[in-house]
């Protein structure tokens, strides 16, 4: 059968990723745990913002992750379109809700941070606005996946959308920045000067690492789950139509 290679890959992925998963999970727990300790207890308070500055240790890494995950999704989409690698599809699909989650955390933590510092839950700050639009892009991507019955077709459509989004994100970012400089109310203060103290930088980087490991761990779980779901789908298909052979099915011999 000429299509065997298409499911040989996921089988190997499940094997390798299962071996890696405990380590990644442990690293995520370690980094987030120590990052939270340093961030919440052993880092100094900001002379202006007092303890609320500690929201930064969740907010900033989430905002980074929101961009990082979208870049990963766009990369996986390009790989899936060019080389038709089935794992790339799964990785892109599995990433989207995670990216949307990080984006939501960045938005909510931003609002919680904005309340004490700016005196309002929401300001149309350039960064917040960009992140909000990114959130909409994630939602559109997820909705497009849901809209197709056929996963192969959904994968391609979503990949096209992810690439269109990737081309547009810099343009949107630029336009929002431009818009913001026009409408910026003078009272909004910009966060943290050019330099950040090392005692704040360490927990920040630890948290960012921890979030990345968390992302990888959940990504592995979600991809494995998706592979199983497709196997079940394929088996159901075999039951209804004996003539049909699953593409994504039983592992190759």
């Amino acid at each position, binding site marked *: 059968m000429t299509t065997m290679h298409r499911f040989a890959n996921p089988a190997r992925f499940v094997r390798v990723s299962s071996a890696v998963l405990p380590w990644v999970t442990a690293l995520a727990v370690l980094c987030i745990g120590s990052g939270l300790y340093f961030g919440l207890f052993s880092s100094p308070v900001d002379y202006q913002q007092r303890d609320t500055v500690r929201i930064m240790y969740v907010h900033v890494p989430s905002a980074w992750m929101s961009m990082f995950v979208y870049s990963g999704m766009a990369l996986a989409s390009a790989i899936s379109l060019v080389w038709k690698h089935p794992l790339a599809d799964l990785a892109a699909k599995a990433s989207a809700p995670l990216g949307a989650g990080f984006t939501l955390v960045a938005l909510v933590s931003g609002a919680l941070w904005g309340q004490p510092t700016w005196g309002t839950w929401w300001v149309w700050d350039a960064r917040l606005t960009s992140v909000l639009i990114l959130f909409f892009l994630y939602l559109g991507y997820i909705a497009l996946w849901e809209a197709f019955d056929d996963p192969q077709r959904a994968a391609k459509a979503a990949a096209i959308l992810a690439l269109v989004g990737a081309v547009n994100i810099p343009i949107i970012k630029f336009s929002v920045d431009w818009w913001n400089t026009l409408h910026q109310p003078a009272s909004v203060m910009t966060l943290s000067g050019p330099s950040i103290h090392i005692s704040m930088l360490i927990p920040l980087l630890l948290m960012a690492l921890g979030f990345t490991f968390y992302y990888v761990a959940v990504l592995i779980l979600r991809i494995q789950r998706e592979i199983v779901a497709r196997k079940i789908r394929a088996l159901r*298909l075999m039951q209804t139509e004996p003539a049909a052979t*699953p593409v*994504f099915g039983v592992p190759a011999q």
Partner: protein
Amino acid sequence: MTLPALDWTTPPAPFAGRSLTCIRGDRLVFSDLSFSLEPGRALLLQGPNGTGKSSLLRLLAGLLPPAAGDLLWANAPVRATQEDHRARLHYVGHLDAVKPALTARENLAFWAGMAGEAARVDAALDTFALGHLADIPGRFLSAGQKRRLNLARLAAIPAPLWLLDEPSVSLDVEAVALLAGLIAAHGSRGGMVIAASHVDFGLAGGATLDLGGFAATVAA
């Protein structure tokens, strides 16, 4: 029926498929399907519903890329020359591509004009006895008339390879005879037909390809 002599823009040439595999969604529709077709010959696709007759025709038209295998035109892979391939075929699917707001003539003239073959529109309408309906908007045409209007593309735009998916649906006996005559004339000029149909158009010298098996193969 006779068709006027014709300078083919693309002359007929042997058309073949080699080890074609078709996957729709997660389902393997057929695999390792091979056929070959000489100029002037026809191939009738047979098999129960769901065996992939329509999929095969879409695949032959280039609308659906094969998951594996190659199409060959004059022994050269079609893959590299998709645009040439599109120019040498007609695809008649389940849908008639008739715009309700355009008249019958406008509908046909549009497709003929797109192909740069505007000269034969009225003659093609007459071929399918649509001459008196030429100025009627598509929305007033019956299902059979729409189907005939769609089939009139075959007469209006010369192309060596016709891919017909159940072309006789909603046609009456006379229209079926018209189509059979057109197909015969096409064959006599060296044209090729691949059709999925329950009606035998007297596809003279035609082979049949049965997609009923799990892995269909044929020597035509």
